[in-house]
């Protein structure tokens, strides 16, 4: 019988420093067959292990349309992420996944998309953004509002440039007041305010919001004011997880196990959950 807790072994093929304490790994399967058979969809997450230190949960940050690797972006915060950040290109890490549900991007075809992200929460959206950009003609207008505390804290700086350069993407970047540099050309202000200013048309539009709880809390009412119905607003939830498989018993919010029934939820689904975030 297979051991559901055994990770794939993966090589770190590339390391990118995104922001202070934030790093991206590009990973390749050590076993080619495993790589060939591996499939995931945007929105899913995995458990990454630094052998000797343990496992940590984060989303898959690359797009399923880019098939020959998997990427993850993490902030150095605890025991495992500190150990991960000690690893270099060529080192081995463990990867368990993909777990959880997905963004229903097929249902979104023919619609406008508005992505709203704050800080280190761009990685989960990056997967779905690239997925949709790689299938660009299936979607109408694509708007991305992305904010961080400071200019330095913005992640994927090269991709932000790339998105800015594209005329089929409307990228609005912002930093919190005081976080700007003299040469900053983006906006200065908090994400919810910037969303309100950007005022994306809610007609035929899906909003995908990801960020710290406080940002989500203030962004949802803005979207509502702009006419977004709760079932057209998507987000991803996080909770402490150990197994990722619905067994270890800690990630539930009420009856809902984030690891299995999430991490992707609509604002409508979240509004029905008990207040235990």
């Amino acid at each position, binding site marked *: 019988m297979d051991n559901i807790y055994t990770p794939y072994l993966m090589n770190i093929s590339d390391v990118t420093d995104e922001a202070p304490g934030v790093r991206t790994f590009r990973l390749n399967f050590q076993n080619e067959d495993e790589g060939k058979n591996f499939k995931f969809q945007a929105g899913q997450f995995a458990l990454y292990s630094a*052998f000797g230190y343990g496992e940590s949960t984060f989303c898959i940050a690359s797009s399923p349309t880019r098939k020959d690797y998997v990427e993850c972006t993490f902030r150095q915060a605890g025991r495992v992420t500190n150990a991960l950040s000690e690893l270099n290109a060529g080192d*081995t890490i463990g990867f368990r996944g993909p777990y959880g549900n997905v963004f229903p991007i097929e249902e979104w075809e023919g619609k406008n998309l508005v992505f709203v992200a704050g800080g280190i929460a761009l990685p989960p959206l990056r997967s779905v953004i690239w997925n949709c950009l790689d299938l660009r003609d299936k979607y109408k207008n694509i708007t991305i509002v992305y904010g961080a505390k400071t200019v330095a804290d913005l992640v994927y700086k090269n991709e932000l440039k790339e998105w800015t350069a594209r005329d089929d993407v409307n990228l609005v970047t912002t930093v919190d007041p005081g976080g700007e540099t003299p040469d900053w050309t983006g906006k200065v202000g908090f994400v919810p305010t910037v969303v309100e200013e950007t005022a994306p048309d809610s007609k035929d539009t899906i909003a995908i919001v990801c960020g710290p709880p406080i940002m989500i809390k203030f962004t949802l009412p803005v979207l509502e004011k702009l006419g977004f119905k709760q079932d057209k607003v998507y987000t991803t939830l996080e909770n402490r997880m150990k197994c990722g498989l619905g067994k270890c018993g*800690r990630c539930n*919010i009420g009856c809902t196990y984030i690891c299995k029934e999430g991490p992707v939820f609509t604002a409508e689904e979240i509004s029905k959950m008990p207040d235990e975030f």
Partner: protein
Amino acid sequence: MEKTLKKEKLNSLITGLKDKGYKTIAPKKDNNLITLCEIQEADEIHFDHVQTNNSIKEYFLPKTEKILSYTIEKTKVSIEEPEGFAVKSVVFGSRPCDAASLPIMDKVFNWDCTDKFWIERREAITIVTIACDKCDSYCFCTSVCLAPDAKQGSDVLLTKISDDEYLVETETEKGEGLIKELETVFSEPPSGTPDRQVATVEKKFEIDKVKPWLDENFVHKIWAEFSTKCIGCGACTFVCPTCHCFDIVDECTMSKGDRVKNWDGCQFKMFTLHTSGHNPRSTQDQRWRQRIMHKFKYYVEKFDNILCVGCGRCSRVCPADMNISEMLEIISTDEGQPEPVSKE
């Protein structure tokens, strides 16, 4: 299949099990504890108790177990799968409530994907239960749709029919196989209706009223009122046969390590603490609510089973005399009134 087991045959039973390659786990007295543990001789078995202090859980979900090992050599890692964790065994003399916990927990360990550590042990271990001939005020199996002679989860059920005889009833093919393997130990079933000596466990609450109340009362002052005395230890969850939450951690020297699965519990504040410092269940009343909700609402909705077998261990062992059946009694008589009965 029905048979009779005479107490004088216990020696041959235990020897027989050993000869057939089974490890035997049975209740044994150790100072102030009655512990389900490995035994070698029949006379080590303790019979005259209500309940063992430890539950049957640890033979399927040990307090700590290796789920993989690895060797790190420079940039490379090689993984070894643990082997030999499922040992052919018989649990002899566990209580019906403990046995009943096993099929309930099969559901979560089989949910979409199979936890082989649980399932392979389930296959390797045969459960021979002894129906309770006595109980105490903490027992409440009859309130959670079970009974002191419930058959769920047992491969063989023994019921005392006289001071030196048990009625042997096989409940599964596995149980039948075991009895056949040791045929000579058992005698023919009693003629006529045997005098089954089974305890009378008082029904404490109406289980049908519990979930409807929980559905409506996620926010309720009783959670805090009842749990102020809770000290936030993990005793209740660890002695519970149905609490299955666990942690996964790495233990490593320079080049060799194990990934282990350890018991964990919802009453610990660390259980849900995010790295950021945020904690979705930051107070003890939220954690107490989680325990009750998980057992009597969430698990029911997910798996159509109550995650509680009424063994009473959590209440017996609670350092602060939190009593789960008392909480459920309050809930089930409250009938949704805004001001609940408080027993504080």
